């Protein structure tokens, strides 16, 4: 009986062929490590945020005079409202943690290289959408930090040439962050996740075109690919189990670790809190913003610090695949970069002193330098590594890639 129904559907919709092509018959390298679990986790957290967000939206009031009260209503009176709220606030942090690890994996293993540039760029687009969504979502509780964080960040658009002031007013819908800003941020915050879902579909279509990279950097032979289902479906579910333990430990036992105390005070346009600080996932970029003494310069530096990732396929001029796997200098650069980001995060968190500003400026320079020296370092390292000797498989792959390039340029 079920097979008859499936046959009926298959006649009218590519159900079975889709499942076969994308799941049960989709070849995946057999050597993927657990660092490859994070894409699936990101998709899961997205669904979690949409679900909790939807049910929160049934009780939340996007009006400046009611927003804070409606959050209290959710936390105190709505059945399991407190659980929905903590899941959503923890989920936002979890989303960024997963995405940053996912990006780190891609950078480490050089998975942004041809032919996966579009994957990297769709990912970049997804990161921007996520940052916008999180920023707008943070205004919604209408606490002191919500209000003043939004004030500071919308102010940055004043850096737009010629029409800066008008842009800021246009964004806010008012001369200062107010009720109009709140309502439109709510509308957009509700919309953006669905744009993210669309972008994820594009990201996955790209993935299924070029197939997953793997820790060795070399495309494995057919016999070393295994069907995604059941091998990676079960591995993803297991990874999900581990993730959920950590996630729910925070939700149930440490939910306040991601909630700023100042945000438990209703927004007051007359009083700025001593210490305005964004959520942890924005701290490194905030530090870069503050490192440049000039306002426009700071905005440009911050924007560049996010966008510069997009240039990785061009900045990394090494012909050796696999990212840091065979390249010790690249690996060192990677670790320096991670450390630098942590330092920037710390600088972004603490109140600025002459010491921390200096550290922040050094860290900002290091941040950009790791990208800018990459073309030269990667080429130099290549020379050194070829001389030292590389595994034959790598040399074979490089040779075949050169062939491909030559053939394409001759056509």
């Amino acid at each position, binding site marked *: 009986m079920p097979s008859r129904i499936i046959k009926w559907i298959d006649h009218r919709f590519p159900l079975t062929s889709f499942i076969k092509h994308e799941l049960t018959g989709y*070849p995946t390298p*057999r050597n993927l490590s657990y660092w490859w679990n994070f894409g699936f986790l990101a998709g899961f957290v997205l669904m979690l945020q949409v*679900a909790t967000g939807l*049910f929160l939206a*049934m*009780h939340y009031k996007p009006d400046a005079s009611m927003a804070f009260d409606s959050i209290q*209503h959710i936390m*105190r*009176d*709505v*059945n*399991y*409202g407190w*659980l*929905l709220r903590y899941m959503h606030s923890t989920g936002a942090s979890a989303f960024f943690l997963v995405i940053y690890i996912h990006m780190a994996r891609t950078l480490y293993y050089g998975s942004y290289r041809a032919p996966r540039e579009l994957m990297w760029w769709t990912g970049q687009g997804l990161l921007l959408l996520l940052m916008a969504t999180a920023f707008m979502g943070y205004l919604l509780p209408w606490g002191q930090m919500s209000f003043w964080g939004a004030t500071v960040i919308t102010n940055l658009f004043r850096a737009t040439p010629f029409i800066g002031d008008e842009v800021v007013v246009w964004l806010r819908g008012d001369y200062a962050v107010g009720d109009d800003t709140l309502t439109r941020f709510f509308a957009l915050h509700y919309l953006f996740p669905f744009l993210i879902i669309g972008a994820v579909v594009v990201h996955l279509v790209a993935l299924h075109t070029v197939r997953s990279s793997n820790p060795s950097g070399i495309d494995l032979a*057919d*016999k*070393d*690919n*295994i*069907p995604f289902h059941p091998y990676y479906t079960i591995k993803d*579910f297991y990874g999900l189990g581990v993730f959920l333990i950590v996630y729910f430990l925070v939700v149930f036992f440490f939910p306040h670790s991601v909630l700023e105390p100042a945000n438990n005070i209703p927004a007051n346009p007359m009083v700025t809190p001593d210490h305005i600080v964004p959520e942890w996932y924005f701290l490194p970029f905030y530090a870069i913003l503050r490192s440049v003494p000039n306002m426009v310069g700071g905005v440009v530096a911050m924007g560049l610090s996010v966008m510069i990732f997009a240039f990785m396929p061009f900045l990394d001029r090494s012909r050796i695949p696999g990212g840091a796997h065979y390249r010790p200098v690249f690996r060192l650069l990677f670790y320096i970069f991670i450390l630098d980001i942590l330092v920037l995060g710390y600088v972004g968190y603490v109140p600025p002193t002459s010491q921390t500003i200096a550290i922040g400026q050094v860290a900002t320079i290091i941040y950009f330098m790791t990208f800018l020296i990459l073309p030269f370092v990667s080429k130099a390292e290549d020379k050194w590594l070829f001389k030292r000797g590389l595994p034959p498989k790598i040399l074979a792959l490089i040779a075949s890639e050169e062939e491909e390039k030559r053939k394409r340029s001759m056509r």
Partner: protein
Amino acid sequence: MAELDDLDDTGRRDFLLKVTTVVSGAGAAAACYPFVASMNPSADLLAKANTEVNLSGVTPGAMLSVSWQGKPVFILRRTKEQIKAMAANNGGLYPEQDSDRTKQPEWLVVIGVCTHMGCVPNKEGEGWTCHCHGSLYDDSGRVLRGPAPKNLEVPPYRFIAADKIMIGEA
């Protein structure tokens, strides 16, 4: 792609898979509960399930209209003549004794929602008239005329003092 090994020890495998599936399913189902529960009335609304009404200041013949669970409730303090008139017969289309509809004959407490399509009837002289489709109720809330299928509903209520009632619990 790699060939799949022949399955051995399938019994244990199947059991493990079954148990895991059941445990996962139970968890997924349990996870839905808070979402569904959050849609039920919140604690502050449940508290408003009961409304206390102070009856002092309502003169004989006058009517008080209060909100209970979002609906209007008519509280009519009937004069001696009105009480006599209501006791004299059992109403029009759906006969009911007036004494069955009150706890104290002086006070009539009915939900002010027409039992036909839900409009709020107006107090006009004797009884109430619903201007949506013309139903007419007497001073006991009983249907005299019109498409209304039932007499006005008497909510659960009780006297908690001589001049106070609590609507919501009998």
